[in-house]
């Protein structure tokens, strides 16, 4: 090969790199390891992880431990899917393109929207892209975000828009002990802050506390000033709750990890993005559309690419290039296996089991109620021992405890956000309740 090229050595092919830039030493890296050595090495690392296969996970806060059907990995790990790239050559990528078209359809069904894209990086990026869309659409610069929206998403919003002219204002939630609606968006504050400068209102339901928000009421408020309503919704919950589209949302976004994707220490996740008709051509990311081939047969292509950066460059609607195709495929297969009935079953079990855990914890007398509004899959309580301490103790019994809310909500010092999915059995919930009770009684 070198002879063909007319070079003496491979090194000679690098002669365009100036001498003074050449690295004249070996990289300081370990390896090489054979497969066997690598497996052994990594197993040694993994043993320091307390994973959810041998620990009971009651932690949620945006990433959830749901049951994942076995069939998923057998399909997602077909090499034709996972070793392919973005379907630039549509004719040899009909598999992933059709699957993305099915994904888009399922997302619109769940959200009650007119169109969805083929996914974004995660819920956080979906939220900031939604805000960007809204601000560009109505040429306004102020965005109201409920404080009950996932703090990770709000942090990302803050950093992404830090140097832009978009201003983020937060709306409080109704504080504990302030009646039946405590834990939901403070509508009075919303009314106070909303104006004809408001580009969009961002509300999450179920919100970060697991509480179901009144999307319709918030959307009506937004409509009064022609602001867009961005609803952040959990896709599993939409099996039982009315779609945000029906309730007046203009854009629905969120985290679709719960649809069959493992927790993976927080990544990859799966952002979804769906809009009502007027905003379709402003959507970020990849979009798959139906068309026909030369012989009139149905086929699928990446479409509306005139929005995208490889054509529009600095005028593109977004800089996002890749989606999370494999995670979206996972979600599509998950929803196909669960079906309408299975999804409803999962959602209902989440409600039943989280409520059972909630009531059982309260019954111990050592765990106090915090909010009054009804919740989905996740709830806030205040144990007599600080969550941080409690979680440390629970780990000794192979329980991954809930989320310590004081980290992000100083006013909720000592409050604990507990997630209970369909994966938890009654025995497991009882085990948690007993352990919490005995730790508290032990007086740590």
């Amino acid at each position, binding site marked *: 090969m070198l002879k063909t090229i007319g070079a003496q050595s491979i090194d000679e092919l690098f002669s365009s790199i100036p001498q003074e830039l050449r*690295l004249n030493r070996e990289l300081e890296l370990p390896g090489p390891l054979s497969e066997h050595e690598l497996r052994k090495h990594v197993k040694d690392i993994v043993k320091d992880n307390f994973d959810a296969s041998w620990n009971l996970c009651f932690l949620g806060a945006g990433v959830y431990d749901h049951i994942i059907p076995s069939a998923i990995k057998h399909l997602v790990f077909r090499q034709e899917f996972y070793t392919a790239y973005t379907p630039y050559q549509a004719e040899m990528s*009909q598999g992933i393109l059709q699957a993305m078209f099915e994904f*888009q359809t399922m997302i619109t069904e769940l959200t009650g929207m007119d169109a969805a894209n083929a996914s974004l990086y995660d819920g956080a990026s979906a939220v900031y892209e939604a805000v960007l869309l809204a601000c560009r659409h109505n040429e306004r610069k102020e965005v109201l975000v409920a404080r009950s929206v996932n703090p990770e998403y709000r942090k990302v919003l803050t950093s992404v828009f830090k140097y832009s002219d978009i201003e983020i204002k937060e709306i409080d939630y109704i504080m504990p002990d302030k009646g039946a609606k405590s834990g939901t968006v403070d509508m009075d504050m919303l009314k106070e802050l909303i104006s004809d400068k408001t580009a969009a209102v961002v509300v999450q339901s179920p919100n970060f506390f697991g509480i179901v928000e009144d999307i319709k009421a918030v959307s009506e408020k937004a409509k009064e000033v022609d602001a867009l309503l961005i609803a952040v919704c959990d896709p599993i919950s939409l099996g039982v709750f009315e779609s945000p589209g029906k309730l007046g949302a203009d854009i629905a976004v969120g985290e679709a990890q719960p649809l069959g994707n493992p927790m993976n*220490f927080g990544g990859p996740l799966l952002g979804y993005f769906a809009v009502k008709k007027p905003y379709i051509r402003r959507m970020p990311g990849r979009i798959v*559309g139906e068309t026909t081939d030369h012989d009139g047969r149905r086929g699928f292509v990446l479409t509306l690419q005139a929005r995208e950066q490889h054509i529009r460059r600095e005028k593109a609607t977004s800089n996002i290039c890749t989606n999370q195709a494999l995670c979206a495929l996972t979600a599509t297969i998950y929803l196909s296996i669960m079906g309408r009935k299975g999804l409803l079953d999962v959602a209902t079990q989440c409600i039943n089991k989280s409520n059972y855990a909630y009531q059982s914890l309260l019954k111990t007398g050592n765990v106090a109620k915090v909010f009054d509004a009804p919740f989905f899959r996740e709830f806030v309580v205040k144990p007599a021992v600080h969550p941080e301490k409690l979680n440390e103790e629970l780990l000794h019994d192979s329980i991954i405890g809930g989320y310590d809310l004081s980290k992000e909500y100083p006013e909720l010092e000592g409050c604990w956000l507990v997630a209970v999915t369909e994966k938890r059995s009654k025995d497991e919930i009882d085990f948690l309740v007993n352990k919490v009770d005995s730790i508290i009684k032990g007086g740590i």
Partner: protein
Amino acid sequence: MRDERLIFEKSVEGRTGYSLPPNDVPQVDINALFGEEILRKTELNIPEVSEVDVIRHYTNLSRRNFGVDSGFYPLGSCTMKYNPKINEDIAALDGFAQMHPLQNPISSQGCLEVLYRMDKYLAEILGMERVTLQPAAGAQGEMTGLMIIKAYHMSRNDHKRVKIIVPDSSHGTNPASAAVVGFDVVQIPSDERGLVDINALEAILDDTVAGLMLTNPNTLGLFEEDILKISKMVHACGGLLYYDGANMNAIMGYARPGDMGFDIAHVNLHKTFSTPHGGGGPGAGPIGVSKDLVPFLPVPVVEKKDGYYNLDYDRPLSIGKIKSFYGNFSVIVRAFCYILSMGPQGLKDASGIAVLNANYIRKKLEDLYEIPYNRTCMHEFVLSAVRQAEKGVTALDLAKNLIDKGYHPPTIYFPLIVKEAMMIEPTETESPETLDSFIEAMRELATKAAEEPESLKHAPKTAYVSRLDEVKAARNPILKWSK
């Protein structure tokens, strides 16, 4: 049998394929709890199918797709190298896949160790001080890097720097990312060598320049030989240099962006570090930064103290968070495995062979195809189908004909500065035999284009569908299935 139906069109009312444990706790009266108006009344068209229906449906779909495991995939700028299987097995271990990101660090020391060590490894490969693994993809890495550039200038009360310079050969994400972060984008031309036009650069450098974004080797597969001069010029006017690491596969172990004077560099783990592209994601786009920029990195940063790994959020100058949690962790695990499997010499050899393979194809095609900047290239090169286009055979036609020959076509019509561009990146994981057959296929097409151009206008013929009407799809968008 050809089955064109969507999964929705296979739905049969009442059919199920799922398996869930029974509900063993008291039933909640959902109507009473939430109130009826909040519960779903709109019909939900999620398919009702059995497990075997699902398995067959998606197995059939997979057969209409083409991956690196199916065959040669010389998609320029995307580095479609082989994805070692051991990495998949390791990423799927319960000890990684079933970890919650918000667990107490006491219970996630293994995950944090991987993040910490990857930070160090990538910093060494890039010649940078520290690395954040948070960005989910190259484009998000660019956005993060540009935010750091902004934060750096702001921290020095230097508010006039509003411009980001990009060459006209750059990836489209470069200007798009700069625009998202609120910079004005200034494009500079390439010179007759296909490299940054130094005079043009000189002319626009002033104290309004925040930085320059550059791919090196650039999208023509050529090393920017004047890089040291360029970085001195940009630094002299107070700007920073951003390295788009999409082409890092060309130089691992040979040269490092940090040594070239770059202040920030991203790498695409799904390109250079062999993690699968997943049909379009998930990828990962970590960025490394020089010492002065470390304080601006996104939070958290993984630190190690007395043998214990922790997440450091207490970083007052940090740009904040740009993605949930710590990045695409399971992708990072795969890249970690790749680096350990290859070792330092292995990584260098990978780049060496990638460059050898690209030059070999270039040399074997230079008589039949126009190669605008025909000299020793790095890991990829760009040919121009202008000669063929004169006969009516475009780069698109050639691409579609390659499909019929069993290859994934190269990237076409990019970079924008080459007419009828075909960007060919073979990667190091291909054998000489594979390269020879591809060369043979390309030569056959060139001959046919010269002799019987009309015969190349109707490909693909062997794919699941024939050529698709993209104009129709965009004009009247059908983006979902309706009953």
